[in-house]
Structures are given as structure tokens and as C-alpha cells.
């Protein structure tokens, strides 16, 4: 009992803690996953928007090139004479070189039969293979992404949806009406509507030094005009599209998201990076996103430190658990203290009752002894005195039984029941009790009808049996006084090699309702008030009787009498294991 209380309290503390911890951890993990997912979505959209910005850049270039090409065609009346083209190259900062192929695939610029400058020579050398295959500029399917104009307007609509979803700045979104993607044939210049007819596209050409971006378009005469970008300038422009890093001061750095994005070129080299300071180059990128055509072999890498928000989440959980644990522990300690104090008080009371009972026992024994002696000394004809002495004797007997009950009860609580087996006959033991109770019961107009069939010699604790029967019969005396009879029957049977003895005590009083039958044996319980009214009792008798029976490897139960009988009454069945021979000394301890 004393050990169990802290155990229960410990369970009370740990169970909610464990539950809470489990849910908390689950919640945190979910939270973490959600956060990671959101972050990755965020990163993806961030990287995509950068890609989108690059696409915008290419689209703007494309628009400019288309206009330039058209102006050039108009100016030279479709001849593309050398001076004009060179002038355009000389004026354009983003173009490294221009080439013009005739419809038949002949090179018109750089000119084939005129002296070339160094740059033109280099360019011709570099793109010899490309320019030899003019079908590249007529077969849109060759491109990795259908960037060429397919002249159907519905295509541009469907192709544009995906890219359009990215967020665009105000000025750009105006353009994005046309620039949904670079492939869109709908060219922006509203004044010139016929533009959408000219096929065009981007080519990423692997030249010696790296990727060379080329924009080509076909003019109305079937000539192909190509613009090779100055790749350094292209990178410079792309860098300028991208943000710069925060200035080293603390305030700005704190605002900056703790991440870094790197632009990696087609050769896997770092071209530009921005964001967080001082990164370990060895760490793996959190996310990698390839760029769209014509930067197809480039990609963006996103680097970030561990998620900082999660740690605070875990900290919060741990703090909560700690708080709860201390709270529950304090509560449990208070409860435990209260409980143990009550226990102590109860124990003191029991001790007090014990001591009083002990103190009462000796004088009572003397009272009974001298009453008996006086009874013998007295003449038989002195009826009145005899009767008075009888009352004194029976009342003293009752008192001593009560004291015996109390003492057994407290002994039982203290050290458990110990059974002392002795060889005897059950019926003899019952008869003794019956004899003792006959005068007492007769004063209440009760008669005992005893039918004994347990006449085998066997081993049992006669004192315990007597005490059980005492309790049962005194209950009959108290509660079933209007029933006229008390039936006691006993029998024995052999079950799996051991002899069992059964004793049934039944009265014809008000009986025990079924709902009360379980509680009947609890210590200090007394049946319904209707029943116990005006009757004295300690409430420990039946409980003690059952405990003794159980210690004797038997049991004491209330039998439910069939409803049909008019006067039901209560019927108790006592069963005991009463071995004929004692193989070993059986002594069971009974806890609680």
C-alpha cells in the first residue's frame, strides 16, 4: 500500500508527460516538414522567378534584335551591305557579331569575297559548322525548348501560362502580356503587327570558349539574320538583373535571409553569387534549379544554413514539458504528503482501538470467568439470578467476540492472516458454535436448524472457522431476527484430490439486495440505512470473515436466492479447503 501510492503518482506524472512529449514531437516534426516544404517551395519560386527574369532579359533582347534586323533590312533594302551591318555591330553593346545567311544558305555577312576584320575572321572560324548547316534555322524542332515561333496564336497562349504565373514587377508585367515566354510569337511592338510572321529562335552554341548564345530570325525575303551575343556582356547584364549583396553593416545583414544563391555557368564554374557572407564552399546546395533555354546548361544553386526557426520550436516544447513536469510533480508531492498524513492518522486510530481492545480483553475475561463460576455456585432454583447471570454471560461473550474481531482485523491488516491447521471434524466445530449461539438467538426468537454432513476428519483452523461462523450468526441475530429460523448446513466433497468443506448459513430476514452484495464485504461498510437503522455494529465482521476464508484457500460469498420465494432472506456460502492430510505445513499469507 505504501509503495503503491508513489508508483501511482509517478504514473500520473509520467503518462501525460509522455503523451504530451509524443504529441509535441510529432507536432514539431510535422511543423518542421511543413516549414521545410514551404521553404523549398519558396526557394523554388525564388529560383524560378530569377529564371523568369532571365527569360525577360532574353525576350527584351529578342525584341530589340527583331527591330534592329527589320531596320537593317529596310535600310539596306534587303541587301545587308557590309558597312551597314558593321555599323550596327559597332553600335550595339550586347552584340558581338552578326551574320546573315541568304535563303539558299550562302553567307552574306560576314562577306565571303571581301576582306574581313580580325573579329569577323575569328567568328567565321568559330561558327563554321554552325553556318554550314542553315537548316538549324529553319527546323524549329531541333531546339531543346520550342522557342521558335510556331505561328499559331493558341500555342502561345497555352505555352505561356506556366511562365506567366511567376511574379513580375510592375513594369515587366506590362510586357509579360507578350513575353509570357520567349517562344511567344506575339511580338510586342503593337504598331507592327506583321512581326509575328517571321520565324525566329535562340541557339546555344558551344564555341571553344564556352556557350555562345545566338538569336536568329528569318526576314521577309527568307534571309536568316543571326545575332551572336557578347557572352561577357551577357553575363554582366544577367548579374545586373540579380541583386547585389547587403552592405557589410550589421542591420542590413540581419534583415537579409540567411541564404546564398549562386549562378553556375555551363562549365560548372561559379559566375556570381549573392546573399549571405562567408560560405563554406564544400557544403551541398539545398536546391539546384536549371535555367531555361538558351541558358540551358546553366543553373542556380541555393545554399542555406540549418533552419533557425525550428530550434525555438523544440525549445518551446522542452520548456513546456519541463514546466508541466514540475507542476505535476509538485501536485503529486502535495497529494502524497496529504495521503501519508491521513494514513498516519488512520493508523494512530487503529492503534488506539487496538490498545483499548487489549485493555478491555483482560477485565472481560475475568468478568466471564466469574460469571461462569457464579453460575455454577448458584442454586438451580434461583431462577432470576440464573437468568441475570445468563444475560451477563452472553453479553460478555458478545463483547469478547467483538474485541476478538477488532483484534483479528487489526492483526490481519498488520501482518496478514495466519492459519493454524489442526486435525478435527468440521461438524463438531459448527456444533460448538451453534450451541454457543442457541441461547443468544433464542432471545430473539430465532432457532438454528443445523444439518451437518461434514463429518470427515480433516485439517482446518477451527478458530478461524469459529470466528467466521460467529460473525455470520451474529449478523443473523442483528438483521434477521424476524425470520424465525437460521439454517446451517454443511457438506464435504473432494475436488481434484483435496477435500473441500462447504457451510451454508441462510436466514429468512430482509435479505441482501444484489447491488449491495459486492460491497458487503468491504470493511466498515454497512448495508442500507433501512436495514442498519437502530442496529449497532462495527462493519468489519463480514470482511474479516471473508479474509479469513480466503486465507484458508476458500471463499465466502453471498448466494442470490431465487426470486420466487416470498421471503428470500440472505444466504452465505462458506467454502474451505480442508485437506485430509497435511503434506507440508501450509501457511499462506494474505495481503490486504
Amino acid at each position, binding site marked *: 500500500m505504501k509503495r503503491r501510492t508513489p508508483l501511482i503518482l509517478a504514473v500520473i506524472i509520467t503518462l501525460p508527460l509522455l503523451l504530451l512529449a509524443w504529441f509535441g514531437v510529432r507536432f514539431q516534426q510535422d511543423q518542421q516538414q511543413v516549414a521545410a516544404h514551404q521553404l523549398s517551395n519558396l526557394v523554388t519560386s525564388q529560383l524560378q522567378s530569377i529564371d523568369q527574369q532571365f527569360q525577360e532579359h532574353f525576350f527584351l533582347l529578342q525584341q530589340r534584335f527583331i527591330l534592329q534586323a527589320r531596320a537593317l533590312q529596310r535600310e539596306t533594302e534587303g541587301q545587308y551591305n557590309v558597312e551597314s551591318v558593321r555599323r550596327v555591330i*559597332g*553600335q*550595339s*553593346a*550586347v552584340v*558581338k557579331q552578326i551574320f546573315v545567311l541568304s535563303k539558299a544558305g550562302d553567307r552574306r555577312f560576314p562577306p565571303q569575297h*571581301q*576582306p*574581313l*576584320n*580580325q*573579329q569577323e575572321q575569328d567568328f567565321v572560324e568559330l561558327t563554321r559548322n554552325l553556318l554550314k548547316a542553315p537548316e538549324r534555322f529553319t527546323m524549329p524542332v531541333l531546339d531543346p525548348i520550342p522557342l521558335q515561333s510556331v505561328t499559331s496564336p493558341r500555342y502561345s497562349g497555352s505555352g505561356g501560362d506556366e511562365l506567366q504565373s511567376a511574379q513580375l514587377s510592375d513594369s515587366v508585367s506590362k510586357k509579360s502580356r507578350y513575353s509570357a515566354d520567349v517562344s511567344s510569337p506575339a511580338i510586342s511592338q503593337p504598331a507592327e503587327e506583321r512581326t509575328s510572321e517571321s520565324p525566329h529562335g535562340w541557339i546555344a552554341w558551344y564555341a571553344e*570558349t564556352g556557350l555562345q548564345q545566338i538569336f536568329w530570325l528569318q526576314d521577309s525575303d527568307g534571309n536568316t539574320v543571326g545575332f551572336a551575343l*557578347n*557572352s*561577357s*556582356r551577357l*553575363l*554582366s*547584364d544577367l*548579374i*545586373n538583373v540579380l541583386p*547585389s*549583396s*547587403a*552592405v*557589410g*553593416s550589421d542591420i542590413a545583414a540581419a534583415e537579409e535571409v540567411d541564404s546564398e544563391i549562386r549562378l553556375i555557368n555551363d562549365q560548372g*564554374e*561559379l*559566375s*556570381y*553569387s*549573392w*546573399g549571405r*557572407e*562567408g*560560405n563554406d564552399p564544400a557544403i551541398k546546395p539545398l536546391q539546384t534549379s536549371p535555367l531555361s533555354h538558351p541558358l540551358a546548361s546553366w543553373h542556380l544553386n541555393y545554399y542555406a544554413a540549418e533552419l533557425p526557426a525550428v530550434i525555438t520550436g523544440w525549445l518551446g516544447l522542452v520548456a513546456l514539458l519541463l514546466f508541466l513536469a514540475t507542476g505535476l510533480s509538485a501536485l503529486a508531492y502535495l497529494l502524497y504528503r496529504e495521503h501519508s498524513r491521513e494514513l498516519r492518522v488512520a493508523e494512530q486510530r487503529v492503534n488506539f482501538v487496538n490498545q483499548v481492545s487489549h485493555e478491555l480483553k483482560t477485565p472481560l475475561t475475568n468478568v466471564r470467568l466469574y460469571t461462569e463460576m457464579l453460575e455454577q455456585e448458584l442454586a438451580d432454583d434461583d431462577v432470576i439470578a440464573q437468568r441475570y447471570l445468563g444475560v451477563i454471560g452472553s453479553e460478555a461473550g458478545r463483547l469478547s467476540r467483538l474485541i476478538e474481531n477488532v483484534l483479528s482485523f487489526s492483526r490481519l491488516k498488520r501482518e496478514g492472516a495466519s492459519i493454524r491447521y489442526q486435525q478435527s471434524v468440521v461438524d463438531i466445530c459448527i456444533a460448538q458454535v451453534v450451541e454457543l449461539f442457541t441461547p443468544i438467538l433464542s432471545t430473539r426468537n430465532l432457532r438454528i436448524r443445523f444439518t451437518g454432513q461434514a463429518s470427515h476428519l480433516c485439517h482446518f483452523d477451527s478458530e478461524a472457522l469459529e470466528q467466521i461462523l460467529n460473525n455470520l450468526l451474529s449478523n443473523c441475530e442483528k438483521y434477521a431476527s424476524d425470520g424465525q429460523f437460521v439454517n446451517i448446513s454443511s457438506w464435504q466433497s473432494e475436488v481434484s484430490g483435496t477435500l473441500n468443506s462447504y457451510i451454508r448459513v441462510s436466514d429468512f430476514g430482509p435479505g441482501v439486495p444484489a447491488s449491495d452484495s459486492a460491497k458487503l464485504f468491504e470493511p466498515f461498510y454497512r448495508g442500507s440505512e433501512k436495514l442498519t437503522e437502530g442496529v449497532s455494529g462495527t462493519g468489519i465482521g463480514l470482511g474479516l470473515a471473508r479474509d479469513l476464508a480466503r486465507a484458508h484457500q476458500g471463499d465466502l460469498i453471498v448466494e442470490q436466492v431465487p426470486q420466487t420465494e416470498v421471503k428470500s432472506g440472505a444466504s452465505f456460502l462458506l467454502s474451505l479447503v480442508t485437506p485430509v492430510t497435511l503434506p507440508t505445513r501450509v501457511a499462506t499469507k494474505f495481503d490486504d
Partner: protein
Amino acid sequence: MNTQSDNPMLRRFLRTFGFALLSLLPALAQANQVNLSINLATPVMEAEQSHRAFIKVSLEGFKQQDKQARIPANVAIVLDKSGSMGGDKIKYAREAAIMAIKRLDERDIVSVVSYDSKVQVVVPATQVRNHQAIYNAIRNIRANGNTALFAGVSKGANELRKFLSRNKVNRVILMSDGLANVGPQSASELGELGASLAKEGISVTTIGLGLGYNEDLMTRLAGFSDGNHAFVENAEDLASVFQYEFGDVLSVVAQGVNIEIRCRNGVKPIRLLGRESEIIGNRVTTRLNQLYSEQEKFVILEVEVPKQQAETELELVAVNVSYNNLFTQNQESLTGQSVARFSRSQQEVKAARNDKALEAAVEQIANEFSRDAIEARDSGDLEGAKKILQDSASYLGSQAQSLSSPRLQEQKEEALKDADALETEQDWNKQRKELKARQYKRATQQTY
């Protein structure tokens, strides 16, 4: 005999003609006009013989009449703040930038970009009103990290573009002390960027600090965009270099100078000394981004002149120059030509020699030798490099004597010293930077 008596007359005639031609040009022009002069080093050549001739085409910016009426500047200062700039270097760089910005006022736009592994726009393009705020921002620059030079220049140029105007002096001033190691890092890639920026009217001045930077990259970047280049060994000298540079920036009088030289009458262009140029057939074009007040910039064109009969005159080249006059804000153009006479008389040839033009040509030729020497040294041919420089020195020596030019004599001494210095391995890095810077200055007639 006849010819001899005729010669002085003719010479006199030519002189007066030449003088008239030369004096006519500035006279024709208003005061605020660029001065174009075309000088043939050997105006009279021996007949019946083909020649290599040098033509000096020089432009001189007119004088800024009023210091107050200068051209507004649009300057981006791009500072390297990589780890190697730590300590005093970055301190001097900051102070140099601040000192330089002190010379600017409300008319000007300034921006400051710093870079390490990443790029920070320290001062976005802004009018120079609140000096103190700009200085404070600059003083916050701390050294750390790698060298993202390409991105730094890109961002600097981008700041310029916010206020880009043909009527402003648009310039990126790049200061670096290390090798570019983030992003593009080759001289050719940076050169390409420089060429592209030049097309927009942006020039890049490169200042190499210490012995760690890539002088090829820096001179290429400056060369293609027609900016200045300087080698500063000690950070203490940064301030004065910045002062010179800003002096240049604030004295620009013309921009977008295109020089087109057409060779006539079977004359063949061989090379244009000093500057990047484009030679297609008989047409040579080159470009100067700007002309500074009262500074002469010139190019030397080497041509091959075919055999001619004696006593004939031949137009060798026709020169066409167009530029944007920042004061009148007009696109203006100048034309000129160079005529040679052919004679049998050695004496006459010698007498007619234009010493100044020849001196300039010799200087540039020797400069080319010096470049070749570096190339040879780079490819490991130490002896070859030394020989080139020694040849160059003896060439300079003989020319110095015949022209009695102390300048060439000086250059000869230099070449000899350089030849000696080639051998010492440990000093080569510094030597190379010095050489590169010196070559660059000679080729572009940089004043500092």
C-alpha cells in the same frame, strides 16, 4: 642643278602650305573645338622605292575655358575589399576614394561598389550633395573574402547606367589588388566586357595595387574601354593616383571619338601602333572614348607606300574624325589628309623630316618591342626577350642620336634597364606590372 635650285622654293612652298594647313584648322574651328593634326614622319620620300612610312594622327582637346563650366561626371568607384586588402591597404583605398570624391559637387553622380566574393553596392548612384553620408558609407567598407572582379565591374557599370548620358563623363574606376577568382577571370573575357562598355560610352580605369593583381586583365579592360591604367605599388600612393584620375575625369572635353583613316592610291595599312584598331582592306578605324582638356592623344599608322616617280606628290591617307563635343553638345567631325612628296635628293628627304612625328613613331615602335619582350619572357624565352629589348635599345639609341631627342635617349636607358631586370626572377612580377603600366601609358599617352 635645276632641281636643286627648285628645291628650296618648293620647300618654302610646302612649308607655307603645311603651315597654312596647320594654322587653318584651329583658325577655322571655334575655340571649343578639337584640334586634329596629321603629320607624316617623312613628308618627302625617296623616289623609285617603296617605303614604310609613319603617319601620326593626333587630336588635342581644347582648353576648358572655365573651371566652373566643366562637364559633369558620372563615376562609379569599384573597390576590391577582398581579404588581401586587409589592414592599411583598405584604409588607404577608402581615404583615396573619399579624397577623390571631395573634388566632385552637385553636378556629378557618384556610386561606390565594393566586392569580395560577392558584390555590395555601398553607395548607389547618387548626386554628390551629401558628402558626409557618402564618406560614412565608404568608411564602413571592411576587407574580407575573395575577388569577384567581373561582377564588381558589372555592378559598377550598372550604377553608371542609371544616369548614363553622352553629355557626362561616364567612368568606372576599378581598384584591385588581387586576381579575379570568382566569375570570369581571363583577360579576354574582361576585355570583351570592356569593349562592350566602351560602345555605351563607359570607360574603365583600372588601378592595380600591390603585386598580386593580373596586369594583363587590368590593361585589357582599360585598353578596350579606353580608360587609364596605373600600377600602384604602395597603398599610400593611391590617393595621388585617384587625384590624377579625377583630374582627368573632370577635364574631359569630348567623347566618343571615332577616327577613320582611309589609305589612298595603293597605300597599304600595316598596323596602328598603340591602340586597338580595326583594319579592313585599306580602311583603318579606331576609337578613343574621350579627349581631355589640353591633352594630346595620337595614333601612329604604319603604312606601306608603293614606288613613285620623282617630283610627284601623293595623297597617302584621308582622315575622318567624329566626336561628341561636350561643350556644344554637338556631334562634330573633322577631316584631314596627308600628302607625301617624292624626290631623289637624300638631302631634301632629310631636311623635310618631321622630327616630332618620327620621335613619336619611334617611341611607339619601341613600345611594341617592349610588348614583344614580355610575350617572349612569358613563353620562357629569356634570352629572346632580352635580345628584343637590347635591339629596341640600340634602335632607340640610333634614332635618339639622329633626332637628337633626349626623350628617346631616356627610353633607351629604360629599355636597357628592363633588359637587365628581365633576368632577376624574384623581381619579375613587379617588373612586369611596371612594364605593362608603362607600355599602357605610352600607347595611350596617359598623363600620369
